[in-house]
């Protein structure tokens, strides 16, 4: 494992499968009377949120607490820390306080990378979403959900998503979820197709390891999973699409469209959903929709990531497991 988790693109196939397998074990903890492990006792993790995201923060916090870590939450609105030096100052403050890991959410793409590489701080950094760049734990929990549903909970152990056809629909341009998922799903052997109006696909997408289509109806029958990305209404004002109604008609997922998907195919959404815009209530509430599962799986994935980054002392010395430690 690497020291930080900044981008899904940094994960090898074996790293990713190890995280998914570890998360399966973590998930079993949730079924026990005491849902807590002593693994990170005495370790302090700071959730450094420069951007509002109650869901992600709560998920990380739950994961940290289940691993018995001490948790510090630092939440700062973009406006009060709009000057970049606050990131550095905050990081150095945390370092001085002896934080063992930093989970960072930031509106600026690259802020976690900068935090991890600038020498401001020594602790491992976990990217909890940066600008329109990456959101690796989201991609991991999505892959975890897909593997469970499409390969199987036990059958999936040790396996990747080879040959699975995954379709991501919506605002790819502004989506860190899309970027992370394209990277990770490709690493795991899946075939990824992006579907969006051309205005919401980045220039330069042609080098991504995926297909791009503007026609949702043609892609749906060939999809094992369809992930709907959130589309912010404000995009309309910047002329990315004419009206909400037109967007829904061309790129929204409703019951009729869902019927075109294969029997076994699932519908995913990173949340929060804009019902009526990219997804209808009928689809969101159907059995095929995994949104609630994704939330539960997020805690397991984040436990796995934190355990693998922090559970051991990743020193340069290689320790071999021998009997004297038993």
């Amino acid at each position, binding site marked *: 494992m690497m020291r930080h988790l900044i981008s899904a693109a940094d994960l090898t196939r074996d790293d990713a499968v190890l995280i998914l397998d570890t998360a399966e*074990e973590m998930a079993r903890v949730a079924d026990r009377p005491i849902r807590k492990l002593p693994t990170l006792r005495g370790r302090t993790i700071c959730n450094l949120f420069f951007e509002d995201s109650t869901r992600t923060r709560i998920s990380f916090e739950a994961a940290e607490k289940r691993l018995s870590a001490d948790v510090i939450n630092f939440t700062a609105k973009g406006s009060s820390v709009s000057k970049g030096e606050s990131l550095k100052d905050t990081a150095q403050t945390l370092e001085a306080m002896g934080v063992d890991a930093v989970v960072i959410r930031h509106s600026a793409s690259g802020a976690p990378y900068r935090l991890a590489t600038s020498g401001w701080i020594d602790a491992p950094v976990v990217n909890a979403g940066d600008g329109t760049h990456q959101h690796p734990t989201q991609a991991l929990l999505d892959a975890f959900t897909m593997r469970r549903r499409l390969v199987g909970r036990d059958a999936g152990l040790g396996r990747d998503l080879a040959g699975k056809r995954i379709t991501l629909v919506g605002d790819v341009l502004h989506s860190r979820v899309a970027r992370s998922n394209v990277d990770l799903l490709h690493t795991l052997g899946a075939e990824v197709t992006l579907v969006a109006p051309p205005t919401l696909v980045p220039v330069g997408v042609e080098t991504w390891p995926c297909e791009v289509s503007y026609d949702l109806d043609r892609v749906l029958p060939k999809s094992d999973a369809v992930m709907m990305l959130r589309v912010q209404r404000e995009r309309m004002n910047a002329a990315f699409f004419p009206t909400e109604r037109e967007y829904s008609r061309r790129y929204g997922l409703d019951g009729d469209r869902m019927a075109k998907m294969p029997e076994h195919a699932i519908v995913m959404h990173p949340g929060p959903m804009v019902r009526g815009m990219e997804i209808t209530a009928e689809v969101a509430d159907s059995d095929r929709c995994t949104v609630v599962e994704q939330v539960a799986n997020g805690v397991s994935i984040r436990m796995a990531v934190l355990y693998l980054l922090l559970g051991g002392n990743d020193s340069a010395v290689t*320790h*071999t497991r021998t009997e004297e430690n038993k």
Partner: protein
Amino acid sequence: MDTQQQYGDDARPVLEAPDIARVLTRIAHEIVERAKGADDVVLLGIPTRGVFLARRLAEKLESITGTKIPVGSLDITMYRDDLRLKPARALGRTEIPGDGIDGRLVVLVDDVLFSGRTIRAALDALGDIGRPRAVQLAVLVDRGHRELPIRADYVGKNLPTSLRETVKVQLAEEDGRDTVLLGSRPSA
């Protein structure tokens, strides 16, 4: 793992396959005797090799008592006290039999008893899963050098060793053969 490199060239077998089968049979009988029939026994193996031993013991118990013995696994990685000293490792499987462990006699099964730290971790892990009536410990080899007040209830073989020596248990399920090797640690 290269056994030759890991355990030196002089590794010699102290238990062979027939010996292992024999001591497991003896332990099974001892369990039945001490548990007065083994009605409420649950066997929990500690991954990796403890799980295979637990399954073998369960078979022997079943053939003695004629009843089905619940068997599972208990991974203690997340409860280790040396996590910060080593790189994070892949987790083993924890599988608790369907009826749970509350009020049962849990027999922990491991291959080698050494410092006792693994068993300490296993006791912590058990406490988070339920409340057994009692907990006992069965090991294939006790090599001494305890660092905690822990002892085994059932021992396949007491093997006095020096700290410079290594004990390696190999089981057919994982290693292709049954044997216990005693060797000296490579000097380098």
